[in-house]
């Protein structure tokens, strides 16, 4: 049934595209015709600047510069393009050039990156991406001068992924800045980028990054082919790409990871993963992803190993509580009272005495209220924040208990889940969803209901794969060597080997010539 839905879904995806600029047309040799065509294509947009000029050894040859105001660095255009063209030209040089355009490209323009194009569509694309177009009358070709330059945000610490110790820089919205940040971390020739344009209308640049020699080529091919299959009008964020290339589009659990941190991406690439940069967003996708990755934080590697291990276990515990606490509370309170020590039971019973709703309804309603408060807190303008906390904490929490509508233990449980949910931010969505389901199951069948739900989740997780790698690895299938970074955070010098199922191409974390061992490829193809 899912395959059918999936096929339908794919078809729906393909329908969301509209025809792009007309293909296959070439530039005309007539300058005026070309300029007219540009004006027709782009409309009367005032940000299209056309600068006509006369030039060349033969007097009377005209040319034109076109660029989009705001997408180019005006200084480069004036100093390195316009000024050489108008002033210091020695037309006698450049004997090897075949024509005037070539001669200008070789001798006059002081721009590092340029490209000669004849096809109309490519020229328009270049113009819209921030290139300056140089046209000469009488030639059916254009020079695309890379003069990109626009306002961009400075490098800041990502707000969603803050750490205490360690590097505080984060990616920005500008793709080139991001790739440079990564190059600064990995100074090996093996770090390769591959770029492609996606989105018919947005023409967003997507860059694939991997470290050759460590990454599995099959993985790169798979990512590349999945990216090529994307047919859509617009890519505005990393999640647009994620939802197209994910292995399990209907699963609660993400099979592609996001991060805004260059150090995290660098670490993942060096383990043999592939990163997908999307221009216009600081979020970078990395694949394949394992469930345990969501429980790892860069801070783990910046603190002593014993402390990091403890913190990591707190994170496991927190996620466990975030998902199961309301369910367990309902199950214990309504089915298995004998499990609660008697004095505690008496306290709870006294507190919930006289509340009008069954425990499960109480927990679900309060959970819902909390989620709404959280959502409101995110969306509201900052000055309103205080109102939310007063209304949330005092009116709903305190007053509901005082009025006898809700038991105080329920509020405590909901508060506990509220805090613990944010310990593992990557699994916020699945956490909230599973919590609701487990609470309902607990209300229906107690601990047995929760167990049923947990087993179902386990089966589902075991059946998930992220780009061919089992999602639950190294816990299922058990890869003993990889547990060193899951159950504990072993000291850095003991973390020498890459994750077995991802980096098996070059298992040792040290240089290949230092320790050349094939490793028995247990995992390969058998997960």
């Amino acid at each position, binding site marked *: 049934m899912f395959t059918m839905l999936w096929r339908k879904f794919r078809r729906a995806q393909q329908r969301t595209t509209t025809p792009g600029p007309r293909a296959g047309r070439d530039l005309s040799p007539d300058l005026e015709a070309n300029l007219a065509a540009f004006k027709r294509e782009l409309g009367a947009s005032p940000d299209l600047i056309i600068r006509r000029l006369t030039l060349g050894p033969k007097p009377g040859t005209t040319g034109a510069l076109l660029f989009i105001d705001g997408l180019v660095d005006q200084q480069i255009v004036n100093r390195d393009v316009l000024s050489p063209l108008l002033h210091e030209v020695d037309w006698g040089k450049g004997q090897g050039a075949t024509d005037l355009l070539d001669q200008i490209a070789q001798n006059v323009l002081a721009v590092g990156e340029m490209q000669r194009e004849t096809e109309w569509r490519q020229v328009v694309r270049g113009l819209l991406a921030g290139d300056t177009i140089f046209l000469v009358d009488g030639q059916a070709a254009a020079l695309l001068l890379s003069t990109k330059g626009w306002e961009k945000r400075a490098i800041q610490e990502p707000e969603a992924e803050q750490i205490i110790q360690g590097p505080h820089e984060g990616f920005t919205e500008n793709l080139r800045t991001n790739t440079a940040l990564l190059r600064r971390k990995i100074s090996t020739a093996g770090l390769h980028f591959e770029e492609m344009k996606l989105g018919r209308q947005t023409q967003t640049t997507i860059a694939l990054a991997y470290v050759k020699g460590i990454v599995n080529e099959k993985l790169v091919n798979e990512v590349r082919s999945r990216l090529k299959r994307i047919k859509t009008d617009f890519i505005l964020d990393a999640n647009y790409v994620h939802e197209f290339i994910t292995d399990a589009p209907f699963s609660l659990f993400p099979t592609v990871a996001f991060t805004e941190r260059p150090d995290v991406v660098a670490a993942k690439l060096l383990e043999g993963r592939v990163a997908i940069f999307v221009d216009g967003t600081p979020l970078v996708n990395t694949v394949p992803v394992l469930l345990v990755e969501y429980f790892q934080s860069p801070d783990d590697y910046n603190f002593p190993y014993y402390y990091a291990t403890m913190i990591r276990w707190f994170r496991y515990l927190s996620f466990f509580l975030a998902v199961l606490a309301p369910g367990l509370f309902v199950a214990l309170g309504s*089915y*298995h009272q004998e*499990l609660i*020590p008697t004095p505690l039971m008496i306290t709870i019973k006294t507190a919930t005495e006289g509340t009008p709703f069954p425990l499960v309804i109480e927990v679900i309603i309060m959970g819902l209220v909390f989620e709404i408060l959280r959502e409101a807190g995110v969306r509201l303008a900052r000055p309103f924040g205080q109102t939310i906390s007063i209304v949330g904490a005092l009116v709903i929490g305190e007053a509901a208990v005082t009025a006898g509508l809700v038991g105080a233990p329920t509020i405590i449980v909901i508060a506990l889940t509220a805090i613990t949910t944010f310990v593992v931010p990557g699994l916020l969505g699945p956490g909230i969803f599973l919590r609701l389901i487990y609470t309902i199951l607990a209300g229906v069948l107690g601990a047995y209901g929760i167990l*049923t739900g947990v087993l*179902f989740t386990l089966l589902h997780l*075991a059946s998930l794969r992220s780009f061919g790698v*089992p999602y*639950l690895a190294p816990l299922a*299938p058990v890869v003993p060597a990889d547990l060193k970074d899951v159950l504990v955070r072993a000291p850095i010098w003991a973390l020498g080997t890459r994750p077995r199922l991802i980096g098996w191409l070059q298992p040792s974390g040290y240089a290949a010539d230092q320790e050349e061992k094939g490793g028995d490829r247990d995992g390969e193809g058998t997960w």
Partner: protein
Amino acid sequence: MAQELISPRQLTFLVISFTIGSWIVLPSGIEAWQNLWLLILFALGQALGFVYLSLFLFRRYPGKTLFAVHEFVYGPVLGKLISLLFLWFFLQTGAGALAVFVTLLKTTVFTDTPDLALLLPWVIIIVYGCRRGLEVIARSNEPLVLATVGLILVSVFLVLNAFKAENLLPLFNQSLATVFWNTLGIAVFPFGQNVLFLMLLPQVNRPQKVRGAVLRGMVVAGGLLSLLQFLAVGVLGRTGELFVFPTIEFYRMIIIGQVLTRLELIPLLNFLTMGFIKIMLCLYTLAVGTAQILELRAYRPLVLPLGILILVFARQIYPSISLHLHYIEEVQPLVSLFFCFFLPMLTLGVSFLRGGAQQEMAS
């Protein structure tokens, strides 16, 4: 259909949970209660012998399931009939485990809940898991086995204050006949059932390691069961044999401080997961086996109807726990012996008599 492969380690884990399965909550051979932990070890030795011999079948016909071997050895008609008998055995094993766990839940926690409310969610997730395939079953089994082994080992420390060594006495107070009968019963009931894995062995990625993997799994499972029985006798004493589910009673005895009391729900849920894997393996084998007998290409469409069949059987052939107990004591050893020892040995014998297996396989 792409063959689903599991690793030898996953096979070991599956053997552990399949063996522990339902026996851990409903031990057979209760009449030898005092000596049960020793009998398990005897039975383990005996069963290792059985299974070692049965594995010759797999050595002789590598890459073939038990049913394929049947057809090869007995010819298509007789072979299919014998395979049908085995299907019955798998069905009955799965239904038995399902019945045990539902009874357990009904007697301990959900006294007023109707059977179906407990059976249905269980069967639904089992069907879901089987449709996902053996790989998924094996993978989800791994953390569950680790949790169970961990729990059993931790319980050693939890019962230290309740454990009384004199409860272990008297030892060897039973007649030889009782000892033999119960040893045989244990050898064929939790351990011998591993004959089911003859259906799954071709799906192990490194066939040369299969034998070690199965035997290792059985040894670990036997050790765990024996340990748990040892603790249970030490804690419960002679009263243990009065209970239907002594393991759960044993955990009920744990009292540490005022906090860790009446813990039986936790092991109960934990052992439920072992039964879950066991039933799922039975259903999977049942579906795959049926598909083989009927020469279908895919087993998946069969899973849901067979799952419903297991549900119905669990309610029909084990209507009450006392009947079930009676069956376990009197009948099951013989039935299991027939399937777990006699039939595989017969097949092996016939195949040796016919001879030339390898050459025929090669042609």
